[in-house]
């Protein structure tokens, strides 16, 4: 289905619900390990299995991380209580989930997108995760399954659910929100933010209305969004679906819909069961959570710079007013946590633009090795390149080696790889030989066939095995031509 252009008549209204797995060592209410990928049912105990007689006890570090998220999203951190959300499902070990209902830990915050648009954050509360289901049948999808298998390793893993206000008005902004939120979650240390692995799960609530209206249309919840790209596509699709429905005289039903990535559409999940009555009530096995001013203060003081602040700092290091291309590079560098490397290299004398470009491209491509790359080595390498001792090609090669080996001395590496700088004498001699061997081409070049510069540069490169500096060669050719 094609997406109608944003006409004057319709606008989409989007709110996002993000579930974020917290990077704790143990689960929310018990001492079982919070680990991904272990053998099934090895990280379980009476509490997270819901055995009769078990009781929950709250993980202090999970609270710390939840508070950091609240702080980073400019929320009020409030006295809070836990509640039971009652429903039957095989992955829910107690057939109720311990969550927070009418008194969440964090509320009334906001998140600013890179373009300056602010999205309100209604709440960010704590709750426990469910176990994992495997449907056994033809396709592995629930509809054709014959039976299912449950692994409770994930049961009880701490989650923070972040609910935005329905302030978003485009799929692009929804993506920007999710990307910015992910950066914030990683920056706080609360999560590794991996959508594809499920440590960050995004559901979208989408409705449409006539532009200029203040009433909300009926919304649908879209689930199964496993990437930012799916998020954008699904929102576009759903908005268009609803618009087409309404324009055709139909009515949007409030329901949950599943995004089918391969088919490129949302599908209704309406089952024959009635809507759930969760019968929320205060969790009697837990006591209220009211972090005191001292703890809130420590969280606030300990929060490092968020992505927005780091992008601004990087932009300033570049001398302000980055171009669009540079802005993209800045975003990529901060997203990967490489901004520290860049600013440190600039402090050590590396040219800022070059440091940014290399970080956004070459370092990003081998980001695992970045941790072992000292800013000083990075800076030294870039200085060698800027000073003409290494060509761009050679510089990238040395950088690749530094990243692979997790560090090293750029000058020594350059020598090892045979990238010694070419002396200007050597260049002169080599050029003499090449011109002598290609007199015809030289003649044409001198008469103005500029494109032969490439030919001669190539020949010089071949003869020097890439050691020559392209700019120097070009300069020398032009000088000789006169």
């Amino acid at each position, binding site marked *: 289905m094609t997406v109608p252009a944003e006409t004057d008549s319709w606008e989409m209204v989007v709110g996002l619900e993000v579930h974020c797995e917290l990077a*704790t*060592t*143990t689960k929310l209410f*018990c*001492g*079982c*390990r919070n680990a991904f990928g272990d*053998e*099934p*049912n*090895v*990280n*379980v*105990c*009476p509490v997270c*299995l819901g055995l009769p007689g078990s009781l929950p*006890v*709250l*993980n*202090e*570090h*999970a609270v710390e991380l939840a508070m950091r998220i609240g702080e980073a999203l400019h929320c009020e951190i409030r006295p809070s*209580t836990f509640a039971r959300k009652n*429903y039957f*499902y*095989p*992955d*829910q070990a107690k057939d109720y989930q311990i969550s927070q209902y009418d008194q969440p830990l964090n509320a009334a915050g906001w998140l600013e997108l890179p373009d300056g648009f602010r999205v309100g954050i209604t709440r960010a509360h704590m709750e426990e995760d*469910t176990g994992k*289901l*495997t*449907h*056994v*049948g033809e396709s592995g999808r*629930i509809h054709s*399954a*014959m*039976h*299912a*298998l*449950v*692994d*409770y390793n994930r049961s009880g893993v701490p989650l923070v659910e972040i609910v935005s206000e329905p302030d978003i008005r485009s799929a692009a902004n929804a993506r920007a929100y999710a990307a910015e939120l992910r950066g914030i979650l990683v920056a706080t240390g609360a999560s590794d933010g991996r959508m594809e692995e499920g440590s960050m799960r995004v559901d979208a609530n989408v409705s449409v209305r006539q532009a200029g209206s203040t009433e909300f249309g009926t919304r649908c919840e879209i*689930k199964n969004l496993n990437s930012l790209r799916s998020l954008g596509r699904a929102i576009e699709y759903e908005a268009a679906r609803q618009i087409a429905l309404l324009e055709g005289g139909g009515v949007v039903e409030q329901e*949950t819909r599943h995004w089918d990535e391969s088919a490129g559409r949302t599908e209704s*999940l309406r*089952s*024959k*069961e*009635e809507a*759930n*009555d*969760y019968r929320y*009530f*205060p969790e*009697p096995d837990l*006591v*209220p*959570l*009211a972090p005191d001013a001292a703890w809130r203060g420590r969280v606030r003081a300990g929060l490092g710079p968020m992505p927005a602040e780091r992008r601004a700092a990087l932009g300033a290091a570049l001398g302000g007013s980055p171009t669009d291309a540079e802005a993209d590079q800045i975003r990529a560098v901060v997203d990967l946590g490489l901004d520290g490397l860049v600013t440190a290299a600039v402090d050590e004398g590396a040219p800022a633009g070059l440091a940014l470009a290399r970080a956004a491209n070459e370092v990003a491509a081998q980001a695992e090795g970045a941790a072992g790359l000292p800013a000083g080595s990075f800076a030294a390498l870039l200085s060698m390149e800027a000073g003409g001792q290494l060509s761009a090609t050679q510089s990238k090669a040395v950088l690749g080696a530094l990243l692979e080996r997790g560090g090293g001395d750029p000058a020594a590496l350059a020598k090892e790889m045979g990238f010694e700088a070419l002396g200007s004498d050597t260049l002169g001699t080599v050029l003499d030989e090449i011109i002598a061997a290609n007199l015809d081409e030289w003649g044409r070049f001198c008469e103005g066939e500029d494109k032969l510069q490439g030919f001669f540069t190539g020949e010089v490169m071949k003869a020097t095995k890439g050691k020559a500096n392209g700019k120097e060669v070009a300069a020398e050719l032009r000088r000789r031509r006169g």
Partner: protein
Amino acid sequence: MSPDAPDAESRAPLSREDVVYVARLARLDLSDEEVERFTAQLRTVLDHAADVAALDLSHLAPSSHPIVLENVLRPDEPRPSLDRDEVLAGAPAVEDHRFRVPRIVGEAP
């Protein structure tokens, strides 16, 4: 059934339909005879509770606990998990070291 929120005076007495709805929520199957009997019995209990429902206690906060404790926390340190074999030995059905259940109709809420 549409569980709207009637106030104390106008609330309808517990009906058969209420009992059927609530049994379904609780995953209990009742025979017709049980529905009749339970409706009558529950109505008696709720009638008895009418004295409480009618009290004006708006000046009091509900107490979900008889104790006043706050911020009970534990350190983020691992404790031994259960032995998987012992856990699965008590399970009604096991496959591939997982708990096996009949097919599930409907996505999780």
